[in-house]
């Protein structure tokens, strides 16, 4: 079985996530777009694991899921702290450390 279809799907999903990170201003939606990109990378890992008949790609995808869990937990805690201090989830309103 050719895996090109899955690679094309992963490329499209990664692009959509990337554009989402760039155009949206809501921090939670930006985090969700990052999850989308991580998932696209996972799909690529699993597709190549299938093509090379090696399970190393599955292990890497598992570690990506672990890192995504950590990132979501810490990121959402930061969003909560931000909302508590500033009453906003808009990334344009958080410009104190921007040059």
């Amino acid at each position, binding site marked *: 079985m050719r895996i090109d279809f899955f690679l094309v799907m992963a490329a499209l999903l990664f692009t959509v996530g990337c554009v989402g990170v760039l155009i949206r201003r809501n921090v939670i939606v930006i985090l969700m777009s990052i999850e989308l990109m991580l998932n696209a990378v996972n799909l690529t890992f699993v597709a190549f694991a299938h093509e090379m008949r090696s399970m190393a790609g599955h292990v890497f995808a*598992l570690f990506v899921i672990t890192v*995504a869990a950590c990132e979501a937990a810490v990121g959402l805690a930061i969003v909560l702290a931000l909302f508590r201090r500033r009453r906003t989830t808009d990334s344009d309103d958080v410009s104190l450390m921007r040059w």
Partner: protein
Amino acid sequence: MRLLMGLVFVVMAAAALRALLPRRPGLTAFAAAVAAIVLVGFYPGDLATFDFWAGAVGFVSILSALLIVMHPNPMVSVLFLILNLFCMALFFLMLQAQTLAALQVIVYAGAIMVLFVFVIMLLNLKAEEGMRVGMGPQRWAAIGFGAAFAALMFWALRHRHGSAFVEPKAFVEGFGTARDLGTLLFSDYLFATEAASVLLLAAMVGAVLLAKRRLE
């Protein structure tokens, strides 16, 4: 592959419609559903094939990804992200990664998405404050960048050496099962597994500290 191209065109049409009608997401979903039904009705081949189902799941995943990015309400975005994660689990099943598909549903769609849903409900976000997109130039630059990035990826895919490292080997017994994955995790990748556990601990401590109301 012809089906895939058709699906991509349908999704692009839906996105254009969405851009023209910023306050009517329901209409876009309806139009996309009609387009999907028409596409299925005129599908030239047999419906019970692998290609058809892979294309259908791919269509749903792309559509849900676009809706995550474009929908004004973050709650709806989360629900479409869950749909997208289920599509990913189906892709994993098609690629004989059964354990990973189960983990995707349990850990990703089950645990991580619950976190997102709870935070959005806790913040009580309204649709209007969710939808602020960037200023004009940044928005168009981002869309142009995305198009260029997609073109680059397609170029890389077309020119990759399809059979450089692939002789069609047979699958080993137990490819993708939990037992083989666990064996691999605790033999070849033992250090990485332990490092991941430390990472999870650090993230847990950090999240608790950050979410505390005030530090004493």
